């Protein structure tokens, strides 16, 4: 499909050039792209799930390679793969369920069609999936309870009973696309779900400190404000991007008392703060978070003063990978021009002088890694969790087979 290929390439291009930034936006775009990939995919009559998985994985690998630091791309790809597997399994179980529970009806159907192999194959397939299925069921218990994207078995079973082979190929695709739609909706509404919990965490006349800009934090604070809580917010400006200024402006626009401080004053001010609430870039499987640069300093200061360090993150930021040297492996270095004006020291930064080594290096990293022991609480759209519980959440949302998309790719470690 050339048009799909074109769309994929365009998105890859954007990722490479860092035109798409912010985990929310990236996650949405990735999910939409994968949806169109799936809908455009022609499925063979048998083993459709495997074909879909193959197709998604191909695209996913390219997307991840385009910007390995944007972890939410990988998260969404894995989520979609997980959805496909689940839908496939649920279709199979409904079929085998039909076989066992409604032998008469099923037999009639199969006999009528004169194709006895297929139900057998399905049954065998289901059998082979059994261990995995058990694993899935275990993993999905809280998930389905939380009313997410998976369809309940009952519904499927009811529909499945009427499906035929040709219907099923359409059915799988249809179900997967439906599920992806739910996923996109989830991503969109994660702010609201997180915001609903704000009242439980923010008390009257508290002082909250945050750094940089995060839409989730903004919504969280706004929700608390809407619930008649009056509190004060210190916003560290978040050099070198100074997004804290924009956040401060928005907060003031919503009637919150806001004080902008420099990043260097965080340590001084945190002694008068009740809580630190920050948005992050990604939540890793060990409960550590990858956050805008400077956050490690804030977390350390918060720990020193026994101030809770609360992370608000939509579930799409949940990354099933364990961090390995995250300061380096999942980081970006931005242009020095954000720190030193162009031309100011350019002579010293020239690789031509002093035998190839420039006199001045400028470090302008984008992300910081905050280890789990500094994080007090992670608030997601499905509630608050200790960092130590994150690995469990990951089992709900991802299949372990997908943790490593490409076994040959050593850069992403599990």
């Amino acid at each position, binding site marked *: 499909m050339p048009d799909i290929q074109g769309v994929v390439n365009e998105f890859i291009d954007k990722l490479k050039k860092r035109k798409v930034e912010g985990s929310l936006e990236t996650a949405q775009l990735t999910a939409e792209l994968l949806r169109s990939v799936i809908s455009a995919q022609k499925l063979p009559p048998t083993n459709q799930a495997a074909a879909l998985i193959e197709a998604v994985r191909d695209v996913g690998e390219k997307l991840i390679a385009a910007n390995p630091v944007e972890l939410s791309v990988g998260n969404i790809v894995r989520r979609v793969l997980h959805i496909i597997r689940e839908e496939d399994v649920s279709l199979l179980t409904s079929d085998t369920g039909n076989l066992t529970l409604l032998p008469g009806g099923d037999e009639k159907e199969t006999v009528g069609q004169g194709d006895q192999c297929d139900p057998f194959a399905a049954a065998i397939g289901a059998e082979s999936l059994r261990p995995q299925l058990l694993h899935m069921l275990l993993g999905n218990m809280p998930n389905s309870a939380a009313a997410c994207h998976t369809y309940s078995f009952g519904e499927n079973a009811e529909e499945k009973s009427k499906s035929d082979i040709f219907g099923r190929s359409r059915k799988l695709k249809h179900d997967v696309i439906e599920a992806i739609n739910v996923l996109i909706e989830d991503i969109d509404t994660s702010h609201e779900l997180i915001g609903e919990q704000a009242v439980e965490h923010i008390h009257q006349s508290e002082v909250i400190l945050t750094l940089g800009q995060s839409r989730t934090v903004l919504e969280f604070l706004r929700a608390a404000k809407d619930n008649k809580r009056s509190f*004060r917010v*210190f916003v560290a*400006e*978040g*050099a*070198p991007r*100074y997004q804290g*200024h*924009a956040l*401060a*402006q928005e907060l*003031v626009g919503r*009637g*919150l*008392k*806001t*004080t*902008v*401080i*420099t*990043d*260097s*004053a*965080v*340590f*001084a*001010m945190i*002694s*008068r703060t009740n809580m630190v609430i920050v948005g992050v870039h990604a939540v890793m499987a060990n409960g550590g978070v990858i956050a805008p*640069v*400077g956050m*490690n*300093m804030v977390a*350390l*200061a918060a720990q*020193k003063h026994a101030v809770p360090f609360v992370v608000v993150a939509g579930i799409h930021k949940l990354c099933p990978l364990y961090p390995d040297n995250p*300061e380096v492996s999942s*980081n970006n270095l931005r242009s020095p021009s*954000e*720190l*030193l*004006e162009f031309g*100011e*020291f350019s002579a*010293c930064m020239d690789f031509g002088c002093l035998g190839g*080594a420039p*006199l*001045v*290096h*400028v*470090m*302008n*990293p984008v992300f*910081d890694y905050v280890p789990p022991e500094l994080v007090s609480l992670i608030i997601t759209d499905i509630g608050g969790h200790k960092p130590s519980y994150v690995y469990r959440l990951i089992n709900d949302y991802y299949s372990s087979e997908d943790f490593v998309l490409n076994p040959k790719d050593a850069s992403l470690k599990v």
Partner: protein
Amino acid sequence: MDARRVPRTVSDPKVRQVGFFTPGAPPDRSHSGPPHPASSSPPVADISPSGNSLSPVMIPPPRHLSAELPRGSHLPHAPLSPMRARDSIPVGSYNPSEFASPTASEFTEDALSPNWPVRRSNSGKFASSLPAGGFDMSSVKQNNFPASSLTTVSIVKMPPGITEKDGGAGVEVQKERNKVGSKPLKEKTTKAQRRALQEAQRAAKAAAKADGSETPAASSGVITSANANQLKASKASLQRKDSSPVAAPEKRSSDRAPDKDRKKDVPHPRMQFDDETRVEKAKKRSVVKQTEAKNRVELFRHLPQYEHGTRLADLESKLFQLDPVHPAVYKVGLRYLAGDISGGNARCIAMLQAFQESIKDYSTPPERALIRDLTTKINSYVSFMIECRPLSISMGNAIRFLKTRIAKLPLSLSESEAKAILLSDIDRFINEKIILADKVIVKHAVTKITDGDVLLTYGSSSAVELLLLHAHELGKKFRVVVVDSRPKLEGKLLLRRLVGKGISCTYTHINAVSYIMHEVTRVFLGASSVLSNGTVYSRVGTASVAMVAHQFRIPVLVCCEAYKFYERVQLDSICSNELGDPDAIAKIPGRNEINCLDDWPNSENLQLLNLIYDATPSDYVSMIITDYGMIPPTSVPVIVREYRREHLWT
């Protein structure tokens, strides 16, 4: 004089010593025992368990009035012992009139005794500091019933108070005192009342201090004039006594040492700018027109925060009207205001040099003593500088040094001699305490740099810069990481200078400090001051850098000259700090696209906070490198004490 009071008048140590011999006398603290002669051999006091647990040996010699007066009014006075209860004075309340006044003769003797200054500087702990016998004799004579109250601790303590208070008081005072009966009543005010009174007096005192109008009278170091002015002095002291009593009780419990030196050391409360009445008063006096900044941060109401930008122009326009301020001082003040001079050492040197200029041009007005008049002048200069920018601690210490030097000028000197001495003193201070100290620090610190090191520094510290340059000159191979932060971006200037010398540098901002810390082997930081609990008071952000380094188990070495050490203690960065221009936060140079906060003064809910300093807890500091060597932060109070003594003596 009635017997009860007498004991207190016993001011000389000798009497106390005598008391040693008659230990039996003491115990009757609870009831006012009739004075018995036996106790005249004093030192019961030692033996008696004093509430304050002070041994007589610890009692400081009475100090000369001149030394005491300048600060006397607000200083804590000798702690009162329970003894006083006898006099129907509520325990703990301070009734100055209760103290027996030394007679005029005593006073003069006291004044004339040449040892005084030395003894004063001595902490009372040293027996050697006891006054000469001759003096004691006189005081003994004064006491009708020397023995009576000696038994109690209170007696022991009283002397300092007496001398302190009454040093200047003449006979009049004594008369006044004889009316004691009425006074105690007056003292029986409620706690609240006393508090209120105390507040008011403090305010008044602060006012007086700021404009220097009252200080001249108080600051007299003039012994010769003491007699001549006795009448005046006594009045002054009377007034002072009236005002001081209230202030004293507060400190009494905490400040057990009777010696005045100690008391003098206790820093008096700083001006709190959330106290409206005091701010009003201060405003009336100020030369610089200061507009209160809008949208002040609630948490920092106690610190001054003015509109920046308006002051400079206003001050410039007054250039030729500012009569009392010497042009050199004026110039320095303007440069402080404009931010041309920053950094503790630079500001301190600039100030001292301006003072030198003003001293060169100084001539004593007729009928005034140089010591007093010059102190007044300096005070007015200082208050002018404070209006330009709050003093740094280094400057405060230098000013204290200068004032001590002025106060100690021998009276016999002519004006030109005195000026020459002062000028050379200032020179010596600059050379020894700042320039030489830096050299010593560099010498010590450079031993901590080895080849292959990656040194991290934050902001721009003159001592650290010297160190890096020196190490480079020695041919050590190392790299420097310069961490910088808004809004001052001083690190950029440091970077430029280091690169100019060919040192290989990495430049980054403070948020990235956790990122860069992986490759760092040592952290060198400068300090604005080191407080006596080991807290390092320095450019805002230093604490964060030290914290991250601590987390990464990297040694944090703080370079700070010992003259910046300060006896105050501080736990956080809120209680005392300095606020910079909030506009500097809103505008980011070179990043015009970030302009969300441009109209911040118009939105009521938005405040910008530009802190200048922060306090680094001592846990994060591995070592402090000073001109006295390399010490752990726990040793700072020792240096403060030793240094201070030397400072007073020299």
